[in-house]
């Protein structure tokens, strides 16, 4: 049986992942990275290689879990930071070796002044040709689709510009362009699977003098994890673990026995790990949490509050809550001081992707292999992205505490406002206003928004709640402003008595959002 005859990708995915764990069982000692506890609030602990006794509703995530799950996502790559000898390369080497074999993967090892393995980071994808007797470097299109995976070692030890091209999957040489990707079989229009990339680096500290802090452009392209040192914990259990030579063959023979699917890794891998087959959308609740959380965990809450309060005051309203400069606030600032730089646009994508990664890992552990992203997954992901942006050597876990604060506060607000599960509060207000307006006209529509602005305009507990409330209230105030500005158009829309009204409203929003950037920033996620 070949892959195209097999209809159930989910079953293949399950067998593929099971084969990874089965094949690497004698090779890799599990390195615990974090523990996620499910519940009303998120509870994440970074384990630093030291596992805990399993408890109900708790998921332990190891480095192999992260590596294996990352193969299914093209949107981001993994970067491990850790001192020499903790095993940063070992797990990835074994995983890539098993799946892609020696010919299907390559390694770039950077040195202080350039690339050690070749003359250029692009060398694995180029060829030298003689033109009029002069050797010229040209892109080798065959090589561009030769590899399934790339390991970049010591990524912070040299000029990264060429490396970034490789990481982005698009290389340019002498006016030619090459795409580093594998065609996914049986897709129409043709889709491609990106190169799986895992990178590693030593921390930029006194012990690693040639290592530098990776620049922002570099870090933005990776999801950075501090590699845990599990050596002491695993101790002698690691002695028998070793990479065996026939790992690649063993992997695919096992997979064939499980599934009956035959072929080389190139025939099978890209199809099974096609990100389109694993696409998971964030729901309104999780999107709203991202919106409200970032202003608290990644920025000075006071500044976030004041910006939102300014918007609210522009509409003639007054927030009845504030961020107080008390000990809680000072603790937030203290935690944020470890941040090397704040959130950037790319981080939003990282949070979304990592949420899906975490959701996927959980589904693997639970045996469903169908990722479902919940609020805790998003909270975990925001925390991990934040921690990845800290200065080397800073205490790990403090920023996750901020995310926990935000998660708890958001949950309290949702409970207080009786917001339906999986939807955002702002979504609920807008849609209830439309329902109300369809029945009783524009006044009822506007009063519904006003009523909910009043409901949220109450005293707060702590800086997290004040910051989150300020965002929610400001967004509703923007909706109110938009609604008053386009009253005549909205009044007509409300005459539609079915769900068409929502679609027409979104069309109105799309048509008018360019009139003020604040409309797009604040209303875009409400009207999805």
């Amino acid at each position, binding site marked *: 049986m070949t892959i195209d005859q097999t209809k159930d990708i989910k079953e293949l995915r399950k067998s593929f992942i099971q084969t990874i764990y089965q094949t690497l069982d004698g090779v890799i000692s599990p390195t615990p990275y974090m523990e996620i506890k499910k519940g009303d609030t998120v509870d994440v602990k970074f384990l630093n290689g030291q596992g805990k006794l399993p408890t109900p509703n708790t998921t332990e995530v190891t480095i192999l879990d992260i590596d294996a799950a990352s193969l299914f996502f093209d949107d981001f790559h993994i970067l491990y930071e850790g001192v020499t000898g903790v095993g940063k390369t070992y797990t990835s080497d074994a995983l890539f070796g098993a799946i892609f074999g020696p010919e299907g993967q390559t390694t770039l090892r950077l040195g202080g002044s350039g690339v050690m393995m070749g003359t250029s980071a692009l060398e694995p994808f180029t060829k030298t040709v003689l033109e009029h007797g002069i050797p010229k470097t040209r892109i080798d299109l065959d090589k561009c689709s030769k590899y399934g995976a790339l390991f970049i070692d010591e990524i912070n030890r040299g000029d990264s510009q060429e490396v970034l091209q490789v990481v982005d999957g698009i290389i340019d040489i002498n006016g030619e362009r090459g795409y580093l990707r594998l065609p996914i079989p049986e897709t129409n229009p043709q889709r491609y699977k990106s190169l799986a990339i895992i990178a590693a680096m030593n921390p930029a500290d006194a012990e690693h003098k040639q290592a530098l802090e990776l620049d922002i452009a570099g870090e933005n392209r990776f999801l950075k994890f501090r590699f845990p040192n599990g050596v002491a914990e695993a101790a002698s259990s690691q002695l028998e673990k070793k990479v065996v030579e026939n790992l690649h063959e063993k992997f695919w023979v096992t997979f064939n026995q499980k599934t009956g699917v035959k072929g080389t890794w190139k025939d099978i891998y890209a199809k099974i790990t096609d990100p389109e087959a694993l696409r998971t959308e964030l729901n309104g609740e999780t999107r709203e949490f991202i919106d409200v959380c970032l202003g608290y965990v990644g920025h000075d809450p006071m500044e976030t509050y004041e910006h939102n309060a300014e918007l609210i005051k522009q509409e003639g309203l*007054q927030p009845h*809550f504030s961020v*107080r400069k*008390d000990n809680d606030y000072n603790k937030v600032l203290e935690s944020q001081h470890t941040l090397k730089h704040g959130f950037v646009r790319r981080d939003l994508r990282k949070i979304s992707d990592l949420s899906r990664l975490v959701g996927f890992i959980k589904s693997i552990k639970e045996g469903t292999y169908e990722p479902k992203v919940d609020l805790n997954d998003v909270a975990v992901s925001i925390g991990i992205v934040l921690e990845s942006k800290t200065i080397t050597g800073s205490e790990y876990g403090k920023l996750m505490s901020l995310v926990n604060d935000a998660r708890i506060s958001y949950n309290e607000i949702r409970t207080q406002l*009786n917001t339906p599960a999986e*939807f955002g509060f702002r979504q609920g*207000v807008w849609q*209830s206003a439309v329902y109300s307006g369809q029945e009783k006209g524009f006044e009822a529509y506007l009063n519904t928004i*006003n009523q909910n602005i009043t409901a949220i305009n*109450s005293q707060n507990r702590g800086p997290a709640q004040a910051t989150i409330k300020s965002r929610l209230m400001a967004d509703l105030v923007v909706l109110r402003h938009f609604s008053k500005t386009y009253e005549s158009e909205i009044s007509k829309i409300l005459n539609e008595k079915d769900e068409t009204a929502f679609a027409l409203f979104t069309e109105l929003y799309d048509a008018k959002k360019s009139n003020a950037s604040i409309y797009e920033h604040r209303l875009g996620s409400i009207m999805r």
Partner: protein
Amino acid sequence: MIKIIPRDKIRHLEWNVNSQPITAPNVPDPVAPISNKSIVQHTIGDLTIESLINSGKPFYNSNIPTALIEAQTYASAGVVATMPYLIAGKANSDKKNYLWKDWFTAYTEEDVGIDIKGAYAPRGASVLITLHGGGILTPDVITKAYEDGLTPQNAAKLLQEDIDRLLIDGILPSGEKITIYGFDDLKKGISDPFGRYAVVTEFDKVKSLESRQFKKKEFLENPLVLARAGTMEYLDQYFNKAKDKDGVGCWHRFNEIDSTLAQGRLLYLSDSYLGLVGDGNLSSDGRFVGVAPEAPDAKK
């Protein structure tokens, strides 16, 4: 692609004709600005402001009733400092004094209940009772409130009948009769701001007040500040010493609570610019100041 929420799931968010759309905050008349008259040094019995400054003794415990009992025991013939007394003490002491080194729990309650007879508000409306010198939230009542469970905003649930008796007859659960002042009485000035008395304000007039730091003019004109301070006499001096660039705070949770439920909490006085704190949890720590007339230091 819009995800439509079934209407039944969000019907509760729809406009209810019985609820209020957004209106301007309902703020009571501002307090008249402080006059230039000379500062009056109030006393309480034999105790002066200097007694508090020089011989007040803090009693801290992570359990409020324990801290209060210890302070009451120490000050058996004296007083446990109320919010007006603490403010006056801070206004008249330098920043090296212990009063500026820490936060304190004031022996001042803020109780909310219904004015059933309409003595101080429209009949059946809620009122705020600022009870200086305690009387309802005794250590036993607070301990029982812990056992029975606090309100969602961490105040003690009180008996409406205790509120009724206080509003109608001015009598505390202990049987002691105290003076009840209306807000206008405070504006005119009272003779015993450090003593035991209650100030009753219509709840609707304080509910919408902002809870934040205020610049000086706003702070001095804030009616909740006056109810808590008992007198305007020391506020100007206190403000000047406590302020930071955003002024001094006056905090509450009136907009969150169910004012039809009789409830009470204690006030706190911050060490600095956070000022008058009325949104502290009754389940948190306590630090009362006991002032005893016989304290050795007081005799110096």
